[in-house]
């Protein structure tokens, strides 16, 4: 037989070497065709008397990257169903996932021994295939990843992963892998018992065949009568592990993420019964999970859309690709140094400029210190450090910028200082120079800054997030004058850093700062309404935000909020109206000298010891006495306020054309300020609630708490037409 995806080569011992090699793709994934061929292959293993055993490997660099994302799409995907009735959908998803499960079950019970020869990474469905083999050999390459990352996109391993992994390595060791979705390297996998043997690449197939010739047991341990899962049946002896495991999980998820919760149940229930029943239990939870909005939105945003944006979906396609060989960074403070660091890591030459050479060198020393820390943790080595530092040239001479492809300024957040460095840098260029000038401002409208440039078409906003080394997002801000070439070049730069770009039009606070500030302000307003700050803070976390609103304000600094209010006042003049929140900030900063974490005093008293516990400042009791009794408070409404206010600000950004692609709205929110990831981002969140209900609830909040909750006309209009928000920008 011949296959499109697989080459099969049977040797003199009757060992079939099956090499997975998907045509026209760089990696192997499980798609509908591959799955169908897999079924045929298994039938051949079973019936072909010539075949005594099978080695399954891959011709690609990876073994298998898992399920094809097309399979996971809710519209027209393999697992989806067009039925409108919920029970039909569930039935159809259950049947689809059972088909996957059954073919892997057929593989491990086909009567012939199967070895997975893992030459490259095996993730998700890829690892689940390997788990359904009788023996696993892996190449000794520390970069090779093995894992079940489904949970990170709101799913569970639905092809037996939740059943085979605990049976193979024990419940206690399997749970962290299933619940955190982190990949492990071959060495760790060997230690855990996830793989049986680790060899160098050239010995992989020999080792696999060796096992088949010498042992070749075609029966999985869990199909033996004497099998007992390590740690015992969870329903009988899992008391300790599960009582604590469930609590630790809830402590993390706040009950917002169904996927890890269902995974716990798959293991608890499924591993306590024979594997066939366990696999059915897993399929039932998968079907239930797949149709939950959290899962649907997470797959959509964190998997499909994130990948698309990361691959440059929003890049002007007609502009040929460019390479940033040399980067200029203006300002060698924390931010500038960090930008220099990540850019050097991506192989660029860096000119790190500050007003004095001494300061530029200090910035470089900061990079060196960062790399030293990475070395301590075993994530870098001395030679990498040397290469990195050699590529950073500290200077105070603007003439050194001449050959840069891109310049990013990260000087002090002050309009006149920024304008000054723009002028000095541009003095090195003529109107024709191709060098793009990026500004890493988070608050100053770039249209205003571009006025200092003689080449406004080459001027763009490149907003990094702190800490730059860790934060995946870059918010690119374009003004009316920014050219498509400039945008494309900037996106190529971001792609080289392996970060994810979103593109927004210019506006005060752009997109991210603007939306997150509404969250902080809402917390302040609640405080001034007489709500216990303890409650406000806990509800921020429970709503799904990574940090409570008042603590977040302390982190970004209260005096910064104060300065922003002062700037608004200056800009808006008489139109500026003070609010309870702006008064609170003024009171905190001016009267009480509480500037936030930076001086150890904000809404909290911050401990000097970083391991210490921060405590809410007792003085808040005088500034904002608690007047609302807990029994009179609608907790769900408070949580709603914290998420809705951000969401409505997002809608305003769409309405004002700041956001022009809703993928940017979702991904920017999740990666930029950690907007409740289980929602899939604020745009997806509206549809999760249902647009009509969202508008009705926003109206109710507006009535009770003020116009800031009033749904923008765009939203109301869509709701009246019952159009999902995610279709708001669909061109007709």
């Amino acid at each position, binding site marked *: 037989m011949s296959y499109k995806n697989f080459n099969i080569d049977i040797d003199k011992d009757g060992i079939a070497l099956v090499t997975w090699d998907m045509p026209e793709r760089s990696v192997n994934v499980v798609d509908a065709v591959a799955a169908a061929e897999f079924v045929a292959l298994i039938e051949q293993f079973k019936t072909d008397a010539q075949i005594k055993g099978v080695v399954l490997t891959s011709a690609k660099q990876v073994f298998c990257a898992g399920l094809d994302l097309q399979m996971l799409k809710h519209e027209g995907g393999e697992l989806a169903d067009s039925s409108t009735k919920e029970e039909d959908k569930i039935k159809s998803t259950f049947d689809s996932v059972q088909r996957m499960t059954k073919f892997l079950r057929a593989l491990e019970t086909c009567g012939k021994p199967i070895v997975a020869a893992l030459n490259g990474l095996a993730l998700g469905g890829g690892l689940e295939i390997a788990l359904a083999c009788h023996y696993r050999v892996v190449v000794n390459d520390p970069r090779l990843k093995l894992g079940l990352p489904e949970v990170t996109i709101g799913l569970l391993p639905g092809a037996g992963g939740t059943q085979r992994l605990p049976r193979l390595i024990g419940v206690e060791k399997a749970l962290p892998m299933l619940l955190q979705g982190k990949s492990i390297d071959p060495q760790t996998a060997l230690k855990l018992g996830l793989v049986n043997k680790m060899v160098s690449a050239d010995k992989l197939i020999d080792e696999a065949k060796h096992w088949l010739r010498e042992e070749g047991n075609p029966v999985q341990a869990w199909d033996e009568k004497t099998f007992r899962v390590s740690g015992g049946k*969870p*329903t*009988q002896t*899992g*008391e300790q592990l*599960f*009582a*604590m495991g*469930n*609590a*630790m*999980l*809830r*402590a*993390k998820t*706040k*009950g917002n993420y169904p996927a890890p*919760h269902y995974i*716990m*149940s798959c293991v*608890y*229930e499924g591993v306590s019964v024979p594997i066939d029943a366990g696999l059915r239990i897993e399929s039932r939870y998968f079907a239930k999970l797949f149709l939950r909005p959290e899962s649907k939105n997470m797959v959509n945003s964190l998997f499909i859309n994130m990948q698309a944006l990361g691959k440059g979906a929003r890049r002007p396609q007609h502009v040929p690709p460019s390479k940033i060989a040399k980067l200029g960074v203006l300002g060698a403070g924390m931010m500038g140094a960090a930008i220099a660091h990540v850019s050097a890591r991506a192989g660029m030459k860096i000119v790190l400029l500050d007003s004095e050479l001494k300061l530029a060198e200090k910035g470089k020393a900061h990079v060196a210190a960062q790399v030293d820390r990475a070395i301590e943790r075993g994530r870098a080595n001395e030679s990498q450090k040397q290469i990195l530092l050699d590529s950073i040239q500290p200077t105070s001479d603007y003439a050194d910028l001449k050959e840069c492809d891109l310049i990013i300024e990260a000087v002090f957040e002050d309009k006149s200082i920024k304008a000054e460095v723009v002028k000095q840098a541009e003095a090195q260029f003529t109107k024709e120079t191709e060098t793009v000038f990026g500004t890493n401002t988070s608050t100053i409208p770039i249209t205003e800054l571009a006025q200092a440039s003689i080449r406004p078409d080459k001027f763009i906003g490149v907003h990094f997030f702190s800490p730059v080394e860790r934060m995946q997002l870059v918010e690119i801000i374009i003004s009316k004058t920014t050219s498509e070439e400039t945008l494309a070049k900037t996106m190529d730069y971001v792609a080289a850093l392996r970060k994810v770009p979103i593109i927004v039009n210019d506006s005060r606070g752009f997109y991210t700062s603007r939306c997150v500030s509404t969250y902080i302000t809402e917390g302040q307003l609640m405080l001034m309404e007489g709500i*216990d700050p*303890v*409650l406000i803070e*806990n*509800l921020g976390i*429970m709503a799904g935000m990574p940090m409570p609103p008042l603590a977040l304000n302390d982190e970004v600094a209260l005096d910064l909020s104060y300065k922003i209010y002062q700037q608004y006042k200056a800009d808006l003049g008489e139109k500026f109206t003070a609010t309870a929140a702006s008064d609170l900030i003024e009171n905190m900063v001016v009267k009480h000298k509480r500037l936030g974490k930076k001086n150890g005093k904000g809404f909290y008293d911050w401990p000097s010891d970083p391991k210490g516990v921060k405590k*809410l400042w007792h003085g808040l009791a005088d500034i904002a006495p608690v007047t609302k009794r*807990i029994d009179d408070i609608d*907790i769900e409404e408070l949580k709603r306020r914290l998420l809705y206010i951000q969401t409505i600000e997002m809608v305003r950004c769409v309405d004002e054309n700041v956001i022009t692609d809703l993928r940017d709205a979702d991904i920017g929110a999740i990666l930029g300020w950690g907007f409740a990831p289980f929602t899939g981002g604020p745009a997806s969140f509206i549809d999760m609630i249902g647009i009509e209900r969202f508008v009705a609830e926003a109206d109710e909040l507006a009535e009770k708490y003020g116009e800031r909750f009033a749904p923008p006309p765009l939203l109301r209009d869509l709701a009246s037409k019952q159009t999902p928000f995610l279709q708001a920008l669909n061109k007709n």
Partner: protein
Amino acid sequence: MTDCYIYDAVRTPRGKGKPNGSLHEVTAVELARQTLCAVRDRNQLDTSLIDDVVLGCVDPIYEQGGDIARTAVLHADYAETVSGVQINRFCASGLEATNMAAAQIMSGQADMTIGGGVEMMSRVPIGASGGAWTTDPQVTFNTYFVPQGISADLIASKYGFSRDDVDSYAVESQKRAAHAWEEGYFANTVVPVKDINGLTLLDHDEHMRPETSMQSLAALEPAFTLMGTQAGFDDVAIQRYPEVARIDHVHHAGNSSGIVDGAAAILLGNKEAGKAAGIKPRARIRNFATIGSEPCIMLTGPSYVTEKVLKRAGLAVGDIDLYEINEAFSAVVLRYMQVLGIDHSKTNVNGGAIAMGHPLGATGAMILGTLLDELERRDLTTGLVTLCIGSGMGAATIIERV
């Protein structure tokens, strides 16, 4: 409705629930047998008059499993017509067993019954019987499951009981229990446990530490800090009660109920049955009730069930002469007295489980006996006994001397 009377109440002394406890060498069924024998022998009872024996047991597994009530009936050589049933309402099982036994009489379906309970915590560890409530992810997630120690600390944190408050309460419990023993207030009810040769194994509650002081308690580390912080239970509790900033871990072995072995039995019957047996009623079961309450904080059920049972009885808080509330943890009692406005001078006047221990399945029947003895000693009329219960419940019974 038929009136149900209490004719007798017995209990074993409570042995330390550890391998070095005096009752550790005794089987659960033997301990239960000795209470049944005591009821029979003290009243020279023809056991064929008894319809049913209901025993509470919280971990009915291993030697306590498989209907220990009927097994104990057989082992005690009762008439073979006496049936037995084991029930489980967690920490209130002993009281619940009594209430169920009483209900058979009150509904006219039986004439004479025994309620009681047994728990050999030194031999069958707490939690040994497992259960979905604490373990099954589908249950624990939605009910915000935390262990009882965390719930007790949550009560203290939410309602403002400091470490000093809970320790003071514990010191007083020890003092009262010691005093009651010295004065012989328990003598009528406690039956010493004997070995197979009739030699005494234990004749007093051996968990007590009358020398307990604020200083000695201050030396004890809180028991639930690690569990709360490392296993995520504090976070779970705060998700359910987000108005609480942090869980103050104030409970420890010295201000929580002791782990002990013990058994108890209460003889119940209607008026005619008592007459037939030639015994005198001591009190009437006036009302009883159970209730469910919020499961995460779990241990606040007693006040709700007290309100419920008082309402059913047409009584007010002030009509009750003496209260017995199981001392699961100091904060449980403190919260109970706080919310109902009951004075400590009427509550647990002879100490409680902090001093003497809490043999889970038996305690409810034990403190019912304690209450009855004390009503008689003080010549008072009405008493109420209540217990907090795992997974958020409360049970209560009102008795009235006749």
